[in-house]
């Protein structure tokens, strides 16, 4: 009975639309009323995942998804005092999704394990951090800094380009290294970048060393200063859309096929005419550019950066997003990033607060050492191991794009070429 009803539901577009609309409206209304409830916020976000599985035209799905993320979520959350903190989490999710999409190109498509990926984020962040504050005055022979807030927009492409250049500079020597060594070399590179940024206050003060760069200029939009998380949310959203567009377009292009060919079999890929180093470099550079763009946004949002935001732990967290979601799977990676950030910034902190309250009221005694917010590594470690062992393909496994065979057959029949049907090979199997 239930199974039958489920199948009916799965086949009926109309029923699905009604269900989805009802779900979205109810949860949005719920968040509107229970404006400070994290759970209501999460339940509303869950609608995006439901949307993904609905049987609808892809374009309609995109439009609906964008509508929910860009309009409905901010509006429904706007009533409570947690509005800015929700939008802050939302911005972080978007930042990390874009980064995870970048890493997914490197790890998921091209099969190159990069354990220092956060370095590119750092490069983007420091690029805006240095020039968007008085820091640049300390070593630049000309010009007056900080640059005005309107120039921030320029730093998004600049961050992308500089990160891509770093990706290429790292890649040229490193990509000649054999597969599993690459992991440790990129890890080393990530640490080098961090240590260098942490110590470049002498002999020339470029990064202000471990003191970090304070008072980074907030961006401004035609003179309107942008400082609220709810405003950064929209900047991050635009870059996030760009990242999704680039990743999905490239995935099934000539370059995307070359990446996957290199991942699946390097020797056969080369024999098929794919230049190995160039293809891998493209993955490094394009993946890095996503991080570079978001780095600039991050610096502007935080208004303060130092090297401690760009540790190996951060690189691994981005990796967890990719593994959790599903290597090579764009929807998976988006889900993975959202889950990890929400887990890290909402669920764990809420749990910790709750446990502290319980301990304070004497209900249970949980040692401070076990506070969930401190157990990040443990939790991410478990996630990595469990997914690697039991669900290697992640939450939403990668699916090959199918071609329309009937259409191709019709086209092939019209077009003549040198391959005519082979009389003997026909009709086997």
């Amino acid at each position, binding site marked *: 009975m239930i199974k039958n009803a489920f199948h009916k539901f799965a086949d009926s577009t109309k029923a699905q639309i009604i269900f989805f609309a009802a779900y979205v409206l109810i949860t949005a209304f719920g968040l509107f009323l229970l404006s400070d409830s994290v759970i209501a916020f999460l339940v509303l976000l869950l609608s995006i995942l439901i949307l993904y599985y609905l049987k609808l035209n892809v374009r309609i799905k995109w439009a609906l998804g964008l509508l929910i993320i860009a309009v409905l979520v901010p509006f429904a959350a706007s009533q409570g005092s947690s509005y800015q903190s929700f939008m802050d989490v939302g911005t972080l999710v978007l930042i990390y999704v874009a980064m995870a999409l970048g890493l997914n190109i490197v790890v998921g498509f091209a099969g190159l394990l990069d354990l220092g990926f956060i370095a590119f984020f750092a490069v983007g962040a420091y690029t805006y951090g240095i020039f968007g504050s008085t820091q640049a005055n300390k070593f630049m022979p000309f010009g007056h800094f900080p640059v005005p807030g309107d120039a921030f927009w320029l730093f998004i492409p600049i961050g992308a380009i500089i990160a891509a250049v770093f990706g290429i500079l790292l890649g040229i020597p490193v990509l000649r290294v054999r597969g599993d060594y690459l992991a440790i070399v990129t890890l080393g590179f990530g640490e080098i970048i961090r240590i260098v940024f942490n110590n470049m206050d002498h002999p020339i003060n470029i990064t202000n060393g471990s003191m970090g760069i304070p008072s980074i200029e907030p961006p401004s939009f035609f003179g309107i200063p942008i400082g609220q998380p709810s405003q950064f949310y929209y900047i991050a959203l635009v870059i996030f859309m760009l990242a999704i567009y680039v990743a999905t377009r490239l995935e099934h292009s*000539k370059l995307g096929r*070359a990446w996957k060919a290199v991942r699946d079999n390097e020797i056969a890929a080369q024999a098929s005419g794919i230049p190995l180093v160039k293809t891998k470099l493209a993955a490094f550079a394009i993946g890095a550019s996503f991080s570079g763009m978001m780095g600039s946004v991050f610096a502007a949002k935080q208004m303060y950066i130092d090297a401690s935001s760009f540790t190996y732990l951060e690189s691994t967290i981005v990796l967890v997003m990719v593994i959790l979601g599903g290597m090579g799977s764009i929807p998976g990676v988006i889900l993975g990033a959202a889950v990890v950030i929400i887990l890290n910034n909402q669920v764990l902190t809420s749990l910790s607060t709750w446990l502290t309250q319980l301990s304070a009221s004497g209900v249970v005694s949980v040692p401070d050492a076990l506070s969930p917010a401190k157990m990040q590594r443990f939790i991410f470690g478990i996630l990595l191991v469990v997914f690697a062992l039991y669900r290697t393909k992640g939450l939403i496994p990668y699916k090959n794009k199918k071609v329309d065979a009937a259409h191709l057959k019709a086209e*092939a029949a019209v077009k003549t070429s040198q391959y005519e049907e082979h009389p003997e090979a026909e009709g086997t199997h």
Partner: protein
Amino acid sequence: MNILEVKNLTKKFGGLMATRDVSMNVEKNSITAVIGPNGAGKTTFFNMITAVYRPTSGDILLNGKSLVGLKPHQVCHFGISRTFQNIRLFNEQTVIENVLVGMHQRLKGHWIGTLLHFPEVTREEEAAKVEAYKILQYVGLEEFVNESAGNLPYGAQRRLEIGRAIAAKPKILLLDEPAAGMNPKETRQLTDLIHDMRHRLDVTIILIEHDMKLVMKISDYLYVLDHGELIAEGKPDEIRNNQRVIEAYLGKEATQRG
């Protein structure tokens, strides 16, 4: 006219001499077989032609131009494609994507064009898919078009490798034991396919094969390697009666079987 000339090709791995002083002339549009017992250096020979290994000494000339020192993908650009003894497909990709990867170097579209929706890139991509489908029809795999390559049955995987290799429109096609693991029916179809490719695709074929029946049936010319050295060459009939070959290769094989 010789399309490929191999001159005194030698490869040493440390102290081991994998091939020694091998020379060959391959006529355009011919089917040439390289045979010899296991470990004779046949695959090493292919690997040198396709630049997987760099020869210790000697030269390889394609239409008079040396291939030594090129990268593997450049050799493909020059017009040499190959299949592998131990099948090397892109297992996670679909069958048609495997063929499309084979067309890689012929596609002009740049990824920036893909991002900006340049109409010529879109058109090229569409045309490429149709052509890839035709290639699949040609090698008899169109029913598997959307299947993951890794899920194909063994014989079909071998044919997909051939499909991927001819997608590059090579001048020379190297087949490394194409019939290995095939049943008699599949082998017969393969024989026909090889024959047909030579004429229809205007390609020169060099193959390594252990199936003597197949080799003798389709080859115009044979080279016999043993312990890295060329011990005989000639037309199938000459090789069949060559005493040295019988001793080194067929004889040994026969005693092993007997």
